[in-house]
């Protein structure tokens, strides 16, 4: 029988607010254990939560960017379970009435568009961390992360392949990064994903037994785990076996999923509306206030780049992959409108530097190694014949961190192009005079030596000779020499 996989994803995105969702503690990463805690996030007796307004704004942002309906009234609910990293014995989350409902994301899969619908987006608090084996046989609890705000983004089971799931996840991350609400770092856990995978006979409308996969810490893990799980489920059914609803863990080393708990042993979370928090009312004014702060989103920006700057689709894609890069490009192209040349510099030389310096780890680069205006001026100098492309590479390296405009660097180092005929003629004369053998070869018809002479003249002028002029004059000189 032919089977069709059905995939839905649940994403937990850690929000980039300064403070936690229900108290004023810092969300700063990498602090001493339990430094970012107070009685509220440590679940002491008597404390009460106060919802962080920024968290709601970020949720509205994410909802608007993914075409959700923003709920005018939504409820924060308690999800009850015991665990040492959960100080109150319940997590404040949303259950029946989430802040964003419906919505969709259009995903580009090898040039074709696929619409993945969203079920909901809701706000919740993160738990702390249990640390085992660090202190004899005792486990330690670090509550720095307890109360850090999360958005849970739940998709409909609209994906059919691991590649679609991967593309959806990348697109979602890109949107959240554009909104600057989440840094999207999967390895550090600020962008987490659980996958729900089932299979059904091709053509069937009935959903099969759902398996949830956890512990997916990279895009690669998501795709590999889904592939593995689809194959496992098909094999099980093909062999006459049955599937049970369960949660399975992805084992990165063994490249397989294994059972964690079945539905029967699943928690009863006893959700109920948190009586400490009133219903969250979001009026149209608030939604509209957030709407005007939305940036142009990646898909739109990519199309606009291709059209407005007549860039190849590939360039537009690379330039809009990150909001900061797209902003950088647009700042540069305003100074000097040679879009394609700028694109080449950015995706080539600049990206190499970002990678070398690990600057691309940042969500939004605000201190660039080369200012956008300076890069634009560099391209302009080439286009105006002030420097050669080759020299430009040297100037670019010199510009890194110096914060000097290219004109200044060229001026200080004497790298500007030599275009005056006299100097070039002198240089050519010297080269021809000191290479009689090659000159003889040329004169006897070997025109390949021409390139050799060009190279020698460039060497003599430290590459600064205007290549066009050099060619013209050299050709003229050689012609004369042959005639002689």
């Amino acid at each position, binding site marked *: 029988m032919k089977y069709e996989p059905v995939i839905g994803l649940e994403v937990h995105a850690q929000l980039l607010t300064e403070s936690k969702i229900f108290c004023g503690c810092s969300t700063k990463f990498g602090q001493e254990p339990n430094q970012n805690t107070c009685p509220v996030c440590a679940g*002491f007796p008597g404390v*009460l939560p106060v919802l962080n307004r920024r968290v709601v704004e970020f949720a509205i942002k994410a909802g608007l960017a993914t075409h959700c309906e923003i709920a005018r009234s939504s409820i924060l609910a308690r999800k009850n379970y015991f665990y040492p990293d959960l100080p109150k014995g*319940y997590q404040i989350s949303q259950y029946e009435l989430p802040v964003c409902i419906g919505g969709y994301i259009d995903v580009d899969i090898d040039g074709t568009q696929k619409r993945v619908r969203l079920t909901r987006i809701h706000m919740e608090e993160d738990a702390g961390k249990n640390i085992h084996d660090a202190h004899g046989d005792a486990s330690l609890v670090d509550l720095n992360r307890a109360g850090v705000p999360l958005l849970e983004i739940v998709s409909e089971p609209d994906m059919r392949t691991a590649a679609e799931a991967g593309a959806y996840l990348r697109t979602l991350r890109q949107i959240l990064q554009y909104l600057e609400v989440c840094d999207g770092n999967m390895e550090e856990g600020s962008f987490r994903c659980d996958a729900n995978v089932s299979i059904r006979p091709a053509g069937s409308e009935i959903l099969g037994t759902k398996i949830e996969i956890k512990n997916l810490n990279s895009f690669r893990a998501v795709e590999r785990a889904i592939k593995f799980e689809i194959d496992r489920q098909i094999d099980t059914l093909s062999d006459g076996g049955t599937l049970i609803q369960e949660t399975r863990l992805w084992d990165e080393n063994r490249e397989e999923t294994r059972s964690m708990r079945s539905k029967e042993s699943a928690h009863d979370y006893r959700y109920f509306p948190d009586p400490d928090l009133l219903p969250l009312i979001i009026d149209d004014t608030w939604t509209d206030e957030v709407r005007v702060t939305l940036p142009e989103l990646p898909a739109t920006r990519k199309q606009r780049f291709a059209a407005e700057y007549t860039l190849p689709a590939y360039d537009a894609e690379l330039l809009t992959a990150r909001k900061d890069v797209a902003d950088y490009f647009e700042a540069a192209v305003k100074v000097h409108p040679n879009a394609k040349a700028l694109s080449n510099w950015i995706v080539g030389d600049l990206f190499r530097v970002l990678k070398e310096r690990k600057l691309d780890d940042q969500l939004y680069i605000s201190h660039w190694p080369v200012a956008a205006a300076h890069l634009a001026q560099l391209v302009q100098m080439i286009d105006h014949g002030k420097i050669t492309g080759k020299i430009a590479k040297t100037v670019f390296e010199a510009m890194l961190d110096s914060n000097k405009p290219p004109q200044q660097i060229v001026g200080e180092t004497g790298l500007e192009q030599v275009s005056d005929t006299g100097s070039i003629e002198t240089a050519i004369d010297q080269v021809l005079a000191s290479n009689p053998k090659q000159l003889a070869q040329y004169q006897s018809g070997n025109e390949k030596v021409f390139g050799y002479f060009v190279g020698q003249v460039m060497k003599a002028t430290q590459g600064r000779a205007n290549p066009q002029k050099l060619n013209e004059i050299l050709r003229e000189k050689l012609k004369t020499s042959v005639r002689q």
Partner: protein
Amino acid sequence: MSLAQLTLHEASDKLRKRELTSVELTEAVYQRIADTDDKVHAYLTLAREAALEQANRADEKLKQARDPAPLLGIPIALKDNFLTKGLRTTCASKILGDFIPPYDATTVDKVRSAGAVIIGKTNLDEFAMGSSVENSAFFATCNPWNLERIPGGSSGGSAAAVAADECIAALGTDTGGSIRQPAACCGIVGLKPTYGRVSRYGIIAFASSMDQVGPMTKDVRDAALLLEAIAGQDPADSTSINSSVPRYSAALNGDIKGLRLGIPKEYFVSGMQIEVGEAVRSAIRELEKHGAVIEEISLPHTEYAVAVYYIVATAEASSNLARYDGMRFGRRANGKDLIETYMISRDEGFGAEVKRRIMLGTYALSAGYYDAYYLKAQRVRTLIRKDFDAAFGRCDVIVTPTAPTTAFRLGEKTQDPLQMYLSDIYTISINLAGLPAISLPCGFDGEGMPIGLQIIGKHFDEATILRVADTYERATEWHKTKPRIQDR
């Protein structure tokens, strides 16, 4: 007369006139505690050293202040579910161990800022769950009017301390009647404000949608003064309401002419002690004499209130008490693994009534039962609230007994939780509806036990119930009668 017998406003007057110092007053209160608390057992923790320091500071301020706050230098008692920074807070539970709070409840901060002297922490039913203080993990508190009787609960320690003059005034909390019922039992004034009127931040939560802090005092004026000091919106409590706080004490003008008193027919039914009914009817006649008009009203869903309350309150409590897991504070047993550590810690730490309510609440919220219990209870709660909305279309305040009987004997109902739950039959609906209500003395039964009159107001209309209560109090002497504390 001992200085400890003074009311808050009397003591405040004397302090202002420099007829008395806060240190003298505080010493008198501790002397009274030394004389009587080995019989009454109102206090779990005393804070004598810190209190005398506060009294000293208050005396300094009294010398300088032009118009000192009414609470400046006044010794007050706090129910032991108020978090007090640096002062042991037990909630009458073993699970908290010797918990020393790292912060003050907002209300504690307010009374401290107003210059009050904190005498100590009073006994209560464990986690405020009970109507007699018999659920305290430490010891029972006795009713100063009769030491073989319960003081009411859960704020029974505060009520007994006020009645026995072991403080000038006290604060309690009321989730289903826990201020008003003990106030009635001990013959004092107890006010439960509108839900949202007073901050809950720093109060150990029992049922978050109903818990409310309020004054327990020797007379109505004191209740008004103490409420003024603690009321108001708190940014740390999202359920506290931004509504201006009137000067309640200024509203006590004795004028209730034309005021409509609603008398709910469902509240005067069988099961009520005859003397209670008589005293309340007589109180209503007294109010009529002062110009109030009687309106018979109906609160048709009254009979469901106890059932609804014991679903909603236990559901919230089951979740609120999850944090007592032995991990970060309080008592931890050493189990062989995590689950056993949880189980033994909670088994040893919680008493029977608390466990019973955690189980009830857990059940009510469980998958498959949620709709039938919690959700249905919330719907009926809405109906109960609508009953009151409709009634308040026809009257300005509602007058009822506070409790169906006077204080019963210690041990009388401990084996029958359902009988115990019925002690709150007249007070519970008010918490479900979030309304303000006051209890004040309106007589004694044949055995000399005090009877309480309950006056219920519209949301945020504490001023009117205080005015009605004060008008009645001026015309009567009940509140001036003091118990003679003696072994029987």
